């Protein structure tokens, strides 16, 4: 598989691998950063959540736009590609929602609550 073809496939499915990875990383940070938040009141958990949300939006857009910008050898399997693109973009939307909820929660709480 050529590099450009691999990149195309990765971007078509971006919403289904980047968005969950970002969300999973943020879940872990949510267990680590509250201690720092409590000490410094930086709202680092909120900041990482919102950055994560921006990344998941970008991954969703990449999934949605990739098949529309790439033509040629994927044309043969258009149905499959469009399906993967739509599933990935919609999934990214869901993870964006989860990350935004996490960011909002991190704005409300200080990190010191036990």
């Amino acid at each position, binding site marked *: 598989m050529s590099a450009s073809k691999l990149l195309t496939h990765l971007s078509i499915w971006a919403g*289904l691998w980047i968005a*969950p990875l970002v*969300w*999973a990383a*943020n*879940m872990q940070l*949510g*267990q680590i*950063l*509250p*201690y720092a*938040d*409590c000490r410094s009141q930086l709202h680092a*958990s909120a900041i990482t959540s919102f950055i994560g949300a921006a990344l998941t939006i970008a991954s969703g857009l990449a999934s949605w736009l990739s098949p529309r910008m790439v033509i040629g050898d994927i044309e043969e*399997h258009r*149905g*499959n590609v*469009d*399906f*993967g693109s*739509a*599933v990935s973009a*919609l*999934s990214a939307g*869901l*993870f964006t*929602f*989860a990350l935004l*909820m*996490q960011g909002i*929660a*991190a704005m*409300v*709480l*200080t*990190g010191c*609550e*036990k």
Partner: protein
Amino acid sequence: MTRPAPAPDARDSDRTLLAGALAETWKTPSGFWGALATVDHKIIGRRYIFTAFVFLALGGVLAALMRIQLAQPEARLLGPDRYNQIFTMHGANMMFLFAVPVMEAVAVYLVPLMVGTRNIAFPRLNAFSYWIYLAGGALLWTAFALDMGPDVGWFAYVPLSGPQYGTGKRADIWAQMITFTEISALAVAVELVVTIFKQRAPGMTLDRIPVFVWAMLVTSFLVIMAMPAIVLASTSLILDRLVGTHFYNPAEGGDVLLWQHLFWFFGHPEVYIIFLPAAGMVSTMIEPFARRPAFGYLGLVMALIATGILAFGLWVHHMFVAGLPRLGDSFFTASSMAIAIPAGIQVFCWLATLWDGTPVFKTPLLFIVGFIVTFVIGGLNGVMVASVPFDTQVHDTYFVVAHFHYVLIGGAVFPLLGAIHYWFPKLTGRTMSETLGQWSFWLVFVGFNATFFPMHILGLEGMPRRIYTYQPDLPWHGLNLFVSFSAVILTAGFLLFFVNAIRSARFGEIAPDNPWDAPTLEWATTSPPPSYNFAMIPIVGSLRPLWDDRDTLPIADGLRTDRRELIVTTLATAEPQAREASPQNSIWPLWAAIATTIMLIWSIFSPWAVVWGSIPVAFALIGWFWPKGTPEDGS
């Protein structure tokens, strides 16, 4: 390799010859030895389903005993020790021996048929998985009969299950039963992933895979990713108990919270391991009864995948009272509430399908409607307990008992009962009685809601879980009596279902190939299917091949008939890639399972069992993989 279906007259004689050759190649020899050695996914799937329903019935008996005990205050039918064993056995049995195995069992039977192949991938591993599952169930129930049943809850929290408090071998029995069932579940998950990825009929591209198959693919990945956590947990618990390690002993640097994290990292995805197949069943079954394609295929698939991923970010909501930072808890609240969105998408898709269709209210559709009602209630109170302040109030009360029974029975058992009615013709060649089916639905539906809805109120009134009795001056007596009475109705519904299934298997009306006029490939073959599933491998041109290509389903040829052979296709586009041999029947999976069982049970009592017990396991595996000089030995 592909061609259109031949003319009817030529097809008849050709097919008779072909069917005869295939039947000889793929047959399971009759008799006891043949039954033990078979690797036919349909025979093993039926065995799995039957065994799982036996465990359901046994678990139901335990539930009935608990309800008799709690029907009145200060009852003396069961003492505290026996009651502890019974609620532990009920939970462990239902989760590990019924719910997960039965979903995988249905998939073992159906997935190869739905994707248009002749057997599941790694069929000998499939046979091994069944024997190991059976051994795990036998271990648990034998221990219970000997008054050695686990008594530490289905979650076996340390330190209660650790060496300090869990004396005897009861907790070890629980932990080793986990090992049996996890080996079995992991084996089936791997088989399903490979079958779905590499054995789909030509033309079954990603957007033409039936929703149930998608559901089983996601579920299999959940099993593969979640179950190692509980294997690690139960193994380290056995090590703590048997060889004196201190994984969970804070005095020696261990951590009791580690157990909760490991257990629930598996335990919450477990809920979706049970629910997602049920959602797939509903999405598949609803089409023939709504008389229209399911609304929102894309949304249904996206919901399955997203739910499967989000399932790994919810586990701490079982630990809200464990003292973790509230900010960290809130992240799990957010994910727990976010997962309601894909669940809601599925519910709206099913409702839209029914709304725009012309529903035929046969028994399977009744169970689907019952599922939607109960699952929505379970989902709504799930959103309630996902909130930290509310969960803190109702934690370890009957509110939580009500919630998870609404989700598990409503979300999985209702669709499963519908699925048994729906696929019974494919399983047995006969149809179940519609009259008895409708009666059993109404008894189960009314009995279930009358049994479990009042438990919300009992929980709000402060009744704790896992108590073997209560004082007469507490305000729980009336509702408990009502709940126990309602459980009689629920039991009657299940009994009627069993009577219907057993009676119909012998005397039911003979079923045609496609009694529901359903669109998926399993209905393209006979009821029940022959040993080789399909004489000709179908070529799929749409998501609903039996509706869209009703009389002209194209077929692939070129497979040998003198050896067991399958078509291997590409992962995304399902283009034919190779012909691959499928193993013949073998007794070695049974020997391997027996050797593994001896090793695992022995290791409850001595760590040296792992050393000496692995020798017969190695011999069994050598026998399993040794070339037999059959045509299937070639690739």
